[in-house]
């Protein structure tokens, strides 16, 4: 390949990457965050800068890992060119007839984990709680941010608005609880029961404990907010049913540390995102892709 083509391939991919990062940063920096209850705005700004850096690291790590796949045999051109071609093919695929099958494979095997259910009901439940909770929390986050900061949707802002009570309070607690239960099952299985098939090395332990700390941190923060009657936590607190339980064991005086607790939770969440591509948690991205590939590209070997 000529130098021109070599550069063009790389430029194309990295410009696209940069565009995604810039777009994400612009959105993060442009939002007003009027409903973030943290008093110390410097904490908020620190968090915003950190989340941009962490998402950048996450994207970079993911891109690097995917480019490593592209170094294998089976495709032509530079890894960057191969990836661009596959992305273009993926876009075309979104409008192809097989999209229905792709969605069905994704739902049944990557989300519902049908094969794991056949093997072990406990592990299936554990995985489903963690994965389902994680995805649902992410989706809720997007919905809430969009309706709060862009739409200024009043029922999501008012203390007794239906959306505030059922989405921001109840649904977030429910998805958090799902993750918490799943992670507790995983922790008990890995550190207490220790079945023969489980192999625990430092990265495995770190992944579980890190996510557990993030989720628990969220509930502790909510408990502090409710106990200290921070704005947004002054009425109808029973909708935040898990945070409410935490508030019962939290002295009201700790409300002075709400900002610090908020920052710690934010920093841990951001670092967790950055950690994903460099840990076993990268399977959250690679496994669904592998399942799709298996479902769509694998040879039909039926003997008939």
């Amino acid at each position, binding site marked *: 390949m000529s130098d021109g083509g070599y550069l063009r391939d790389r430029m194309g991919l990295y410009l696209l990457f940069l565009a995604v990062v810039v777009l994400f940063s612009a959105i993060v920096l442009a939002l007003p965050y009027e409903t973030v209850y943290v008093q110390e705005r410097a904490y908020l700004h620190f968090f915003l800068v950190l989340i941009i850096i962490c998402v950048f690291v996450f994207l970079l*790590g993911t891109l*690097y*890992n995917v480019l*490593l*796949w*592209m*170094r*294998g*045999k*089976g*495709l032509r051109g530079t890894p960057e060119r*191969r990836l661009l071609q596959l992305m273009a093919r993926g876009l075309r695929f979104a409008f192809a007839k097989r999209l229905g099958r792709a969605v069905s494979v994704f739902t049944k*095997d990557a989300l519902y*984990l049908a*094969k*794991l259910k056949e*093997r*072990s009901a406990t*592990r299936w439940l554990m995985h489903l709680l963690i994965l389902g909770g994680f995805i649902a929390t992410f989706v809720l986050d997007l919905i809430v941010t969009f309706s709060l900061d862009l739409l200024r949707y009043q029922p999501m802002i008012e203390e007794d608005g239906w959306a505030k009570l059922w989405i921001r309070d109840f649904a977030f607690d429910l998805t958090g609880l799902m993750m918490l239960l799943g992670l507790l099952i995983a922790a008990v299985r890995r550190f207490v029961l220790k079945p*023969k*098939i*489980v*192999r625990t090395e430092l990265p*495995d332990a770190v992944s579980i404990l890190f996510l557990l700390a993030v989720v628990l941190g969220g509930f502790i923060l909510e408990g502090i907010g409710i106990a200290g009657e921070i704005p947004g936590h002054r009425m109808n607190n029973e909708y935040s049913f898990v945070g409410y339980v935490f508030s019962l064991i939290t002295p009201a005086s700790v409300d002075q540390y709400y900002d610090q607790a908020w920052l710690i939770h934010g920093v841990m969440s951001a670092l967790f995102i950055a950690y994903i591509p*460099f840990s*076993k948690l*990268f*399977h959250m991205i*690679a*496994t669904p*892709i*592998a*399942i799709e*590939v*298996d*479902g769509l*590209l*694998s*040879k039909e*070997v*039926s*003997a008939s």
Partner: protein
Amino acid sequence: MRRLDISKLDVLALMRYDACTSCGECTTSCPTGGEAQDVELVTPRGKILRLREFYKRQYGLRARLLGPKEIPEDQLKELTSRAYECTICGQCKTVCPAHLDTIEMWENMREFLVANGLAPLPPHEQIVKSIENYDNPWMQPRTQRARWSKRIEKDVRIRDALRERPEVLYFVGCTAAYDPNIRDMAIDTARVLGKANVDFGTLGNEEGCCGSTLLRTGLLVPARRMVEKNIELFEKASPSTIVTSCAGCYKTIRQDYPKVGRVGARIVHISQHVNELIDSRKLVPAKKVEARVTFHDPCHLGRHNKLYEEPRKILEAIPGLKLVEMERNREDARCCGAGGGVKTAFPDLAQKISALRVEDAEKTGADILTTSCPFCYQSLKDAVVARGSRLRMLDMMELVRRSAIGD
């Protein structure tokens, strides 16, 4: 410093290494890593994590920023040896919750090891030499390949496929053609086809190894030569159907040959063909064979090709024969231990695994253990003898021949 060449790993394989959740589901059911011996590195998870660790040391982000790290030669050799202790039975593919196509991964891993100068293992090198020199892995002269047919040349009309171009080409395979203890498999197959008046022939001494042994051990270059040669012969013979009695040949011709060239004929295993003959009443298994029989699913037929029901239908069609299933059957069947070059390089390990399978068969209370693959047959028969088992090991075509023709 040895720099691993990861361009020999498939794009999909590299993705799958990252997709492994290291859940360990594959470790207990792995016949070589989990059942016959408890060695993590032999298990699918062990191999995946180790190879991933190795290539990330040289190509991961840290390596990119700080420079690649050397991988000690003894660690590479250990991984190589362990990678060849796998029979590529595909049990791990069946149980993997992440849907990883481990069969492709192991074959590609071996190709990678060969390309990086770490393999083949010495016992496999001998096979390569034999195939290169004699067109078979058994160091037997080419002129002896069709000798098995001499015994029945008066009873059965076996055509010269290259000159007479019969409708059906029977691809005998090296083991049935050369191994004196397995030859009856070819003879019974030919007699059954003859009884059903099938217009069939063989490539005689021209037939070459299908290339399965080479492909399963990662030796793609010599395998390609064999495949091309056989495809050329298939073109000359131009049959409408190619029948194999070896599960390994069946998998290779059906799945691997199309990657090299076009095979115009329909490729079927003898169990499919005989089942069709019985269904169409061209073959009638009329004589009673009073016994309880259990069927061992060869990996290359079952998990690799999803062919489970035809052999069972045949056995059920034989009067007097009662089919009893082993606890682990069909997709969950335990491997016989011989595949993937294990019997050649690690005969003791292969024997341990085949003993476990014979134990499975004994538990059914069957009188006969049968299968439809010469390699499985050979391996299980050895285990039956070694264990002093009361089971009789019979090839499925022998049962069909007894019922359709007689003793």
